[in-house]
């Protein structure tokens, strides 16, 4: 069996452009025939963005959706409301520090909070797989109820569907939240301004590494727990600063790096962060290094990033630190006029590098 490159190994036609020799020899043309969904489309990186931009947005576009924020602001008679929806497919369903139930409640409440909205109610839709044990389901519902109680937000509508064994991974949950605005706190991804100080409320990468370590059966000396938490009270700490809070973001899927990139692009500003100030717990860092992952791209579920005007930055940091969820808050970086739409990291040696959006999921390295 002998063949040349370009001939199909698995049956699909290969699309290749003819090599241009004008600029000297070049590599062979890329694979462009992605004709179906891949896992990378769910990573929160460039593939996710392209999926939405190329397939959903052109056909479903409207003003509210067009802001690409954590939650959309919708005009209704009497004012504005915030609406957000999120679907949770985490595996394992239960992990150190939480389960899919608490995650689904906190995740959507956090998305509303990141717009400055005060959450009013939630809906929850469940896809249950035949054979899911009631023990597990009960623990998930218990965790949801506890999270709702803590936040003071009720689930006002719900739905359950059951699919055959093998058609879902235990259970999936969708939650939708509605919030209202009642003061001057109206952060948005496009409001970052040159001179803003970037605060982060706590250590990064805990959720993603907790789930990954648990899923892969990796045993570390200490158990890494998810940071899953409701950020509404932390946002409450910032209400007093009103319009001086420019952007709030909970860096979930895709991690802090993706969140900062999205903000830099939405606001058309440069973002500069200091490597030495990135807060990563030592056990999480060790797990990341073992797996060859960059903690900046690992998911968080209980951390917020705040872009605030420099005048109130010190006070805002102090306010965040007064809440237990924010006791380890630090200054992560600043907004600069240089390199608009780019996130640049300054390392301890004085070198710099660009922190880009990843194309898809981070892939563990060989060695």
């Amino acid at each position: 069996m002998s063949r040349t490159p370009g001939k199909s190994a698995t049956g699909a036609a290969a699309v290749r452009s003819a090599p241009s020799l004008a600029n000297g020899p070049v590599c062979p043309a890329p694979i462009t025939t992605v004709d179906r969904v891949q896992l990378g489309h769910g990573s929160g990186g460039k593939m996710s963005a392209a999926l939405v931009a190329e397939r959903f947005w052109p056909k479903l576009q409207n003003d509210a959706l067009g802001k690409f924020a954590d939650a959309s602001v919708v005009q209704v008679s009497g004012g504005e409301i915030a609406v957000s929806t999120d679907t949770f497919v985490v595996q394992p369903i239960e992990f150190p520090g939480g389960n899919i139930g608490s995650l689904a409640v906190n995740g959507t409440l956090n998305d509303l909070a990141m717009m400055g909205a005060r959450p009013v109610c939630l809906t929850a839709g469940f896809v249950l797989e035949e054979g899911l044990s009631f023990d597990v389901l009960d623990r998930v519902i218990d965790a949801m109820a506890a999270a709702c109680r803590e936040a003071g937000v009720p689930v006002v509508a719900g739905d359950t569907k059951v699919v055959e064994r093998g058609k879902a991974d235990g259970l999936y949950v969708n939650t939708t939240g509605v919030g209202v605005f009642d003061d001057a706190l109206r952060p948005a991804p496009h409001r970052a301004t040159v001179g803003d100080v970037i605060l982060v409320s706590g250590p990064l990468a805990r959720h993603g590494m907790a789930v990954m370590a648990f899923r892969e059966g990796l045993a570390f000396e200490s158990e890494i727990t998810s940071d899953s938490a409701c950020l509404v009270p932390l946002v409450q700490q910032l209400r007093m600063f009103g319009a001086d809070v420019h952007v709030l973001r909970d860096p979930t899927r895709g991690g802090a790096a993706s969140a900062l990139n999205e903000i830099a692009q939405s606001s058309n500003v440069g973002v500069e962060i200091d490597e030495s100030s990135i807060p990563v717990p030592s056990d999480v860092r060790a797990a990341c290094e073992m797996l060859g992952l960059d903690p900046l791209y690992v998911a968080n579920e209980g951390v917020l990033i705040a872009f605030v005007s420099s005048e109130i930055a010190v006070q805002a940091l102090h306010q965040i630190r007064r809440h237990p969820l924010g006791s380890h808050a630090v200054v992560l970086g600043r907004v600069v006029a240089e390199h608009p739409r780019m996130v640049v990291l300054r390392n301890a040696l004085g070198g710099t590098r660009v922190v880009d959006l990843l194309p898809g999921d981070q892939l563990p390295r060989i060695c």
Partner: protein
Amino acid sequence: MKFLSEYRDAQIAKAVIERIKAEATQRWCLMEVCGGQTHTIVRQGIDELLEDAIEMIHGPGCPVCVTPLEQIDKALLIAARPEVLFTSFGDMLRVPGSDCDLQQVRARGGDVRIVYSPLDALALAQRNPTKEVVFFAVGFETTAPANAMAVWRARELGVKNFSVLVSHVTVPPAITAIMEAPDNRVQGFLAAGHVCAVMGWTEYEPLAAKYQVPIVVTGFEPVDILEGMLLVVRQLEAGRHEVENQYVRSVRREGTPAARVTVDRVFELGNRKWRGIGEIPMSGLKLRDEFAAFDAEVKFGVQDLTVEEPAECRAGDVLTGRLKPPKCSAFGTRCTPEHPLGALMVSAEGACAAYYHIGRYRPEATGAAT
């Protein structure tokens, strides 16, 4: 962290940088062999900080990057088979073969899974007796002992539904190929610490003597790499060409004999193609005949598949140090991590991806990573 934080200490690193600048009387051209070292150098901006004293050429030490198209295509063919559960280290999943990659095979229904150890793949085989579990055994001497151990254990345990697709390469023949190249500019090597932790450095001694080139066994943290560079520069300045060991906390001259024995029992040297470089004689490891039952190429009848590397691909120029990734006309435009033209753009350790992801912001650049 003992043996780690001190090798990341910025003050120590800055002091070593100043030493190198002070001792180098000319701009020396060094090559780091290993992809892990490339990653640290580019990530920390070490090459930039030492630009006037040292030119770093990024060597062929990323296993993902040098795996030939042929082996990738074999992997794709095997992984697409319905009875196969194909396992691999993560970064092989996006390496493009002739017309797709393992992620796309998975999206089309293939059972492709990421594992962290070949022994995990063996365990999968035991848990899934009706599936043929194949592990993509890629890497340099570093991953060879674990891969050899998996095959050895499979035979001991009588696991018949486990096989490995071998694409192992070894470092010394690559150094020979680089030094023999007519336009070679490399004057000194940082050898890969982890490879030497297994193999030791005795096989580098004749290379240093024959090509009169300093070789320093070097670790992976910023201070390791800077110390390795300093040792090479000192040799060059003094006109010496020896094998030295910077990575003393991990590497002994004889390596790890138990690991070498395991590798020798299962593998033997054979010719191997390198992506972008071509075939290098006796540069790879292949399964010994007595382990043929665990050879996925034999089991799935793909051993005769040959795929020619595209002649116009510049990966070879990058791998041999003739071309810096940003100088490639496709870099960052037609070749990006989303649409990699070659394996060098896929793995974080690939020189092209390292430059792309960790591109530098230069004030004179107009908004583009360079």
